[in-house]
């Protein structure tokens, strides 16, 4: 566990050394929501939720894209000899999850300022955000570990990940519409269990496949 934290800390240090990294993500969030907002002008509750997750989706893709691209080839080799692949994977996932949670909150703030709150049951939205950040960070980390080995890293990540993200996204949207009060008679626990089972499926598959895919 300590070794994993070590890796996460290294990761964060590298990222934060380049000042623009976090600020870049923030800027991305800001400009994306600005574009959407200038198109829509106002966001009613339902559209608020949809917009939120669409922007979140693309921001998360953008943020995770650099997961395996940051290091040079030599560094990989170093990692490969030093750490077990699962340790590396856990570190990357934790770091990405932190990034996604950061995106989630900053996007929430930005949309709150721009288009109002609309939130009726904020706790459920928070739950949705945390599950989404965890699940998507695992899925995206695995996919980007595949995509890094192809010719077009950036577009490959999007092509491979977007359709796979949809089952999670659909349940997120449903949970969000409950949190926004547009479907008040729904039982939110259904969505949470559904999300949790999909995420655990993704987790199990990733833990099994990552060490295999990482070898090269």
């Amino acid at each position, binding site marked *: 566990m300590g070794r994993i934290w070590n890796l996460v800390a290294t990761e964060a240090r590298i990222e934060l050394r380049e000042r623009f990294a976090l600020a870049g993500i923030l800027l991305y969030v800001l400009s994306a929501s600005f574009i959407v907002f200038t198109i829509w002008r106002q966001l009613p509750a339902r559209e608020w939720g949809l917009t939120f997750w669409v922007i979140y989706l693309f921001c998360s893709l953008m943020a995770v894209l650099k997961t395996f691209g940051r290091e040079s080839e030599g560094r990989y080799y170093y990692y490969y000899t030093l750490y077990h692949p699962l340790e590396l994977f856990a570190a990357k996932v934790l770091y990405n999850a932190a990034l996604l949670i950061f995106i989630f909150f900053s996007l929430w703030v930005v949309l709150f300022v721009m288009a109002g709150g609309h939130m009726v049951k904020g706790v459920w939205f928070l739950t949705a955000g945390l599950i989404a950040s965890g699940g998507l960070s695992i899925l995206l980390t*695995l996919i980007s570990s*595949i995509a890094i*080995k*192809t*010719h*077009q890293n950036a577009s*490959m990540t999007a*092509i*491979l990940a*977007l*359709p*796979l993200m*949809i*089952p999670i996204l*659909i*349940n997120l949207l449903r949970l969000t519409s409950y949190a926004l009060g547009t479907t008040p008679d729904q039982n939110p626990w*259904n969505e949470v269990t*559904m999300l949790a*089972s*999909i995420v655990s*499926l*993704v987790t199990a*598959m*990733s833990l099994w*496949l990552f060490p*295999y*895919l990482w*070898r*090269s």
Partner: protein
Amino acid sequence: MQNANQPAKPSSLALWKWAAILILIYVFIAGWFVPLKPGIIGVSPDKTVAGDQVVLTVQGYNTYFMKDPDQIRAWLRLTGDTVIKALRVEVVDDRHLKAAFYIPSVLPVRQDAYPMTLILDQPSEGSSVLPNALFISPASETDSAEMALWFKEKIGNIHQQAGMRYPFRNILAETIRNTYFHVPMWFAMIILFGISAWYSLRYYRHGSLRDDVISSAFVRVGLIFGLLGLVTGMLWAKYTWNEYWSWDVKQNMSAIALLIYAAFMVLRTSVEDEMQRARLSAGYNMFAFVLLIPLLFIIPRMTDSLHPGNGGNPAMGGEDLDNTMRMVFYPAVIGWILLGIWISQLAYRVDLLKRNS
């Protein structure tokens, strides 16, 4: 006894391929030529006022009214047991008849609209039903004698059509036959993807490139079957739901499934090194197949859908598939799956030859 000098006959086909051929021939013949049960496709007029006598001109489909014109009975049903029987039924020809009804001036329940279901029964041909055949505008009267008319008659002694016939469903009509052509495409696709994932697992275990070639061929053919399911479904939807694409859950989810596997094909083309490609695609393939399960089997069951059997129930149960249809549908599924496996086998044999030469 096989002569050692003679090579084995190259033209001998495996038994399951013969089975595929025979089953598909059966499916095509039964699917196309077994007739439908009689149905009602039109009624005019379609609205009337309560307290009036109305003569409905009924247009039948696949009906033979002339067989026993005197024994045809007709009812209009509002709800469960509020029924009025036709005063008289006159048969015009095999496809048309006129039924006269007296609509009581008092309506038994208070509703926004009063849609009536027309029910016909004929001893030789069985019964047929048309929901929402006639709409009644209420008259403002209260007369308990009129009220009693609603409960005077009961629908009884309904005849069942004997013999091999497919049920007549109102919007579907003949397109119910698509059950044997459109639906098995999806079954075949899922099975082919499953076999492909199985070969990916084999590659994961043993690392033989042969398994990789086989698994990619199964994905390719599975994609073709999925595409066929999508396109045929769109054509069917155009003439039953009025839109090629209605953003129905199952339509969306299956399109996404195809996207996932299209991405798989893109992934394969963008890696040059053979071992690398095999490993990456095996990993992605297994991952994708596992994620396909919530996508195709769980999420569609949680939402309302235009497809039959949604909102909780599995698709192929209950009323949607009667026993006659089962006799063709199950063989159809097996036949199309076998054909899919056969085509994939041809595809990977070509690929293997290409690799080895």
